[in-house]
């Protein structure tokens, strides 16, 4: 930034510097002297706070050759006042599975971005991507070229498969019931076309969690939630349970009473688990990690349909496949994914998420199209309407 450009005064934003927590204002200000774009970004935001209006135009279409997604166009409607943010496009970069980086990889990303963009990043966006905030249209192709040369690729945006994302699974967690990172990488590679070339009615997100703790919140934040589970008994070390008790853990109150299906029994000497009634909530395992662990026959439950509110309210995913073994090359799962995309892509309305589509056409019809038999685990909620006509009743008439 040249000396004759004035730093914008930001008394309202400065309020956000107070207090012990991190502040994006502080981060932007570290760049204010180096980057005109950071200065004008602060200026426009301060102006927004003053007038209580937003000044980003919505819906720019920019991109790189060969891809239909990955870049989100943004333009300022106050370009005369804040010329450095006239263009302020966002770039999504596909993150490594589990968000593991070498420091060299992070430096490479930051070097590219500082040279060709604002230098401001969001590590990571809610879809999981590395998010580069703020650049010009002319810089898009050079950025894309430099990223791909270093082995990175753009992520998803628009009506495509969004960048698949997973918890760091077996890399750091003994509860991971399948290799989330392996599956995430495999699905990302398998569905490159769907990821870069929008062809769906709306976005489609896949998140993979290694166990029912669901650290990536896949059940609420992805259309297809793949959550690790097991189908045998919880592994238990009775001596370690006793150790927890002698160390002062109130097993009855903290563990047994909090079991949602009341399938635990503790007599002060021995913990018993009625595994047939366990709903895999993870509570007992979370409280006594040294004594309990998920079973050995591990796989995942595949759930479908969650989304944030837009047309319909927020929805959680519900069960599509109660248990599936997940071993490379994950053929069965990939086959199912292709089959659930087909009826949605064919009959879905513009901007209709798959969860909304299923609500509209009915789960029965959807399952029939996909070729999956209905099972009791798919029931989301008991029926509230008591007026039920059973087939045999209708036949009697």
């Amino acid at each position, binding site marked *: 930034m040249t000396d004759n450009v004035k730093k914008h005064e930001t008394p309202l934003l400065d309020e956000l510097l107070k207090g012990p927590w991190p502040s994006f204002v502080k981060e932007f200000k570290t760049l204010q002297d180096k980057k005109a774009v950071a200065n004008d970004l602060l200026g426009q935001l301060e102006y927004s706070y003053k007038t209580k209006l937003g000044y980003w135009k*919505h819906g720019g*279409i920019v*991109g790189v050759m060969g891809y239909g997604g990955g870049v989100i166009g943004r333009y300022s409607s106050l370009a005369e006042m804040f010329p450095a943010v006239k263009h302020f496009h966002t770039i999504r970069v596909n993150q490594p599975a589990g968000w593991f980086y070498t420091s060299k990889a992070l430096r490479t990303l930051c070097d590219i971005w500082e040279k060709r963009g604002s230098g401001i990043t969001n590590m990571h966006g809610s879809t999981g991507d590395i998010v580069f905030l703020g650049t010009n249209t002319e810089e898009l192709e050079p950025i894309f070229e430099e990223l791909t040369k270093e082995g990175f690729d753009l992520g998803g945006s628009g009506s495509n498969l969004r960048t698949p994302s997973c918890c760091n699974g077996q890399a750091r967690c003994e509860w991971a019931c399948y290799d989330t990172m392996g599956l995430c990488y495999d699905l990302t590679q398998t569905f490159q076309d769907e990821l870069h070339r929008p*062809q769906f009615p709306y976005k489609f997100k896949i998140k993979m969690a290694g166990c029912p703790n669901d650290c990536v919140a896949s059940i609420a934040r992805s259309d297809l939630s793949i959550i690790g589970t097991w189908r045998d008994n919880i592994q238990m070390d009775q001596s370690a349970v006793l150790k927890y008790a002698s160390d002062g853990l109130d097993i009855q109150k903290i563990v047994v009473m909090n079991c949602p299906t009341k399938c635990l029994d503790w007599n002060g000497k021995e913990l018993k688990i009625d595994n047939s009634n366990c709903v895999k909530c993870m509570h007992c395992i979370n409280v006594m990690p040294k004594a309990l662990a998920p079973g050995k026959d591990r796989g995942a439950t595949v759930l479908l349909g969650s989304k944030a509110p837009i047309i319909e309210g927020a929805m959680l995913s519900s069960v599509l496949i109660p248990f599936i073994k997940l071993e490379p090359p994950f053929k069965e799962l990939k086959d199912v994914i292709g089959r659930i995309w087909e009826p949605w892509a064919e009959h879905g309305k513009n901007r209709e998420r798959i969860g909304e589509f299923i609500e509209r056409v009915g789960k029965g019809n959807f399952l029939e199209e996909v070729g999956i038999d209905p099972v009791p685990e798919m029931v989301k909620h008991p029926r509230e309407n008591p007026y039920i006509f059973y087939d045999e009743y209708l036949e009697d008439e």
Partner: protein
Amino acid sequence: MSDELKINVEGVGELAVDEDGFIEDPGKWSEAVAKHLAGTEGVTELSEDHWKLVNYLRNYYMEFNIAPMIRKLCKETGFNLKKVYELFPSGPAKGACKVAGLPKPTGCV
């Protein structure tokens, strides 16, 4: 700065475009305009297949006042998605719709 938001098409004159280069008034579209816009999207020559796609988009837009969904476009033109990107490397929304003079497709991020 404001001259950036106009294009000068030979034989047609100046046309207003938005930041992304979409023409502001779809009524002012002509084949000459299409050829000019194609140049901005990495398409040097408009082949018969390009015109088939462009004309499909224009006819659909004139009938329904909206751009078709991509699956429909592929089905009705007989071009698969790969072919569409071969024709218009910046994609059906940014490339083909722009050349066909359709208003900018709105989309959520």
